[in-house]
């Protein structure tokens, strides 16, 4: 392989890593908001799945990707509110509720998808305006010809769907709001010490519900990207564990927004490398088992959580329902 070919491969892997990390970023930020407010959310997977289904169904019916996205967000908020009701109002077990959300989503989307479209659970393929098409930046094709820098512009910066750029904006907004605004600081406070927030006269319930709804919106983006951006329609169980990878990335990022983006990019990149290396002989090493690379995000998270490299400490009050003292 010549130098240019290696470079082209590198660009291709980075490009596919970027594409694969977009849903992870949205889901990871969703988890960030929820857990920062003290509500543990292992139902990211389920919310993404209902969003993917609803967005594909609505986009197919209206031939509009934007309406699809709206439907995805609404469906995801609906499931987020079930989780919120169980976790905040009913003070139920948040893990149990998350598991329920995931199973409900997996069952319902497959069942309803099959009943509506009769295609074994998938929605009819979407095309044209029903999908978020890649946005080509001005002059991308011409600039692509420039060696070294050209492909970076044409393939890494340009050529992604609008939702991919939204992920970047969402990261910026999440980081900014959680660090700099009163609302954001209160969200974080309620995840660390809800009693203090309550004493200050701020409603714990309202803050936690807003965080859970924001998580719903973000999962709505994540699922819609899967069905309308990455793929062309809904497939049964198309999230395939991405919600849990996002959860792993959240731990990896130690519950912070920008590190979450990097962690998701890293995990997306690993995924891209795994796809690329399928059946490829690497000189000097031989065939690298794809599974070893696929297992890395989970393995790294376990190692990190166990405190062997650094220490990931979750928000203090996460997972605990708040009970007002009387």
């Amino acid at each position, binding site marked *: 392989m010549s130098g240019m070919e290696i470079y082209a491969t590198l660009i291709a892997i980075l490009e596919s890593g970027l594409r694969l990390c977009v849903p992870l970023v949205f889901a990871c930020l969703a988890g960030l908001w929820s857990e920062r407010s003290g509500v543990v959310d292992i139902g990211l997977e389920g919310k993404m799945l209902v969003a993917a289904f609803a967005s594909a169904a609505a986009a197919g019916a209206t031939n509009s990707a934007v309406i699809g996205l709206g439907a995805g967000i609404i469906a995801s908020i609906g499931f987020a509110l079930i989780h919120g009701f*169980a976790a905040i109002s009913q003070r139920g*077990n948040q893990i*149990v*509720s998350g598991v329920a959300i995931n199973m409900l989503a997996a069952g319902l989307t497959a069942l*309803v998808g099959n*009943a509506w479209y009769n295609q074994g659970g998938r929605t009819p393929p979407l095309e044209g305006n029903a999908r978020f098409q890649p946005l080509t930046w001005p002059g991308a094709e011409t600039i692509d010809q420039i060696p070294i820098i050209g492909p970076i512009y044409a393939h890494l910066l340009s050529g992604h769907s609008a939702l991919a750029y939204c992920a970047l904006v969402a990261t910026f907004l999440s980081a900014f709001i959680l660090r700099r605004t009163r609302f954001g600081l209160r969200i974080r406070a309620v995840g660390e010490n809800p009693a203090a927030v309550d004493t200050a006269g701020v409603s714990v319930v309202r803050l936690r519900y807003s965080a859970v709804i924001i998580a719903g919106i973000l999962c709505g983006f994540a699922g819609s990207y899967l069905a309308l951006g990455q793929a062309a329609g809904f497939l049964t169980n198309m999230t395939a564990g991405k919600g849990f990878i996002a959860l792993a990335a959240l731990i990896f990022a130690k519950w912070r927004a920008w590190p979450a983006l990097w962690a998701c990019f890293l995990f997306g990149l690993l995924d891209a490398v795994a796809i690329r290396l399928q059946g490829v002989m690497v000189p000097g090493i031989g065939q690298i088992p794809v*599974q070893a690379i696929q*297992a890395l995000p989970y393995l790294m998270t*376990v190692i990190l959580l166990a405190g062997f490299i650094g220490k990931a400490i979750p928000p203090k009050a996460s997972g605990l329902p708040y009970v007002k003292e009387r």
Partner: protein
Amino acid sequence: MSTPIELPKWADVSLVPILAVIVAFLVAGLVVLGIGENPVKATVLLIQGALGSGEGIGYTLYYATNFIFTGLAVAIAFHAGLFNIGGEGQATMGGLGAALICLNLDFLPWYIVLPLAILGAMALGALWAFIPGYLQVKRGSHVVITTIMFNFLAATLVVYLLVNVIGKPGSMSPETRVFAASAHLPYLHEALAYFGLKIPKSPLNLSFVLALLASAFVWITVWHTKLGYAIRTVGHSPTAATYAGISIGRITLISMAMSGALAGMLAVNEILGVQTRLLLEFSSGYGFIGIAVALMGRAHPVGIVLASILFGMLYQGGTELSFEMPRVTRDMIVAISGLVILFAGALDGLIRRPVAGVFARFLKSGA
């Protein structure tokens, strides 16, 4: 609302979960209605499919066997205050454990290889739960997250081994060779035919007996041994346990290992009993449905066996139903499990409070 909701014990263990299941089924009925089918007709078809024939009952109990194992696994961890959502991974590893024994030793007679294979399934299942337990005790990482990660790790590990190491050479699908006959756990219709009893053919095998024995074992261990007392103390109040001189770490490790061993026994039913080879995704969600079973059965073996039979009926009846009503696929069961987990678990208070209210009124008017 912060005061505990007082209920007579019988209502707590029977009325509340039964009401939760009824609510879950009503919601499921609405879903069936929503996709344009008749829920009453669906229920009748489902019950006929599950219990209408000897074969149907056999299948129902065969599915129930899986749920008993995974339900008990979740329950024993519950008693120690732990949430083991790693049943899928532990079952997968259990399959690997059983397969490793069978692939290497199935030239031996059945009375050696079968017990070893069962122990192999239990051992690797236990290991896959012990490590998250150990990491919680020694390194402070929570078992919930670690067991989720271990589910994926088990899945990728088994895919790797099946593709590269223990898979049948030349086979396109990732699976091992079929084990020798000495390593097959007999079907119940075969076993009973040996004693001259004839029952209809079904995948129901001796694992069902093992599952009932495991239920008895869990009942005795949790309620009638010193260890069980310690487990329940840790689950109820870790501080009280510490004052009583019980090592929380030790109990966590033991409960997780027992939980994992029970989940691993799912492989005894699926791999040794039915598939007689290791293949991918044989655990197909049974580990997660175990959570619903444990919640519904109130973490008591009797409740778990009953809940397992109900879920077995759903599985078997649901399969028959999907032939008669193609619009109602087996995904319905996954949705129903989700609803049961929701109403018997996370939204428990939604049902418990009104019931407690009714009881309070009755007691007042009675006095």
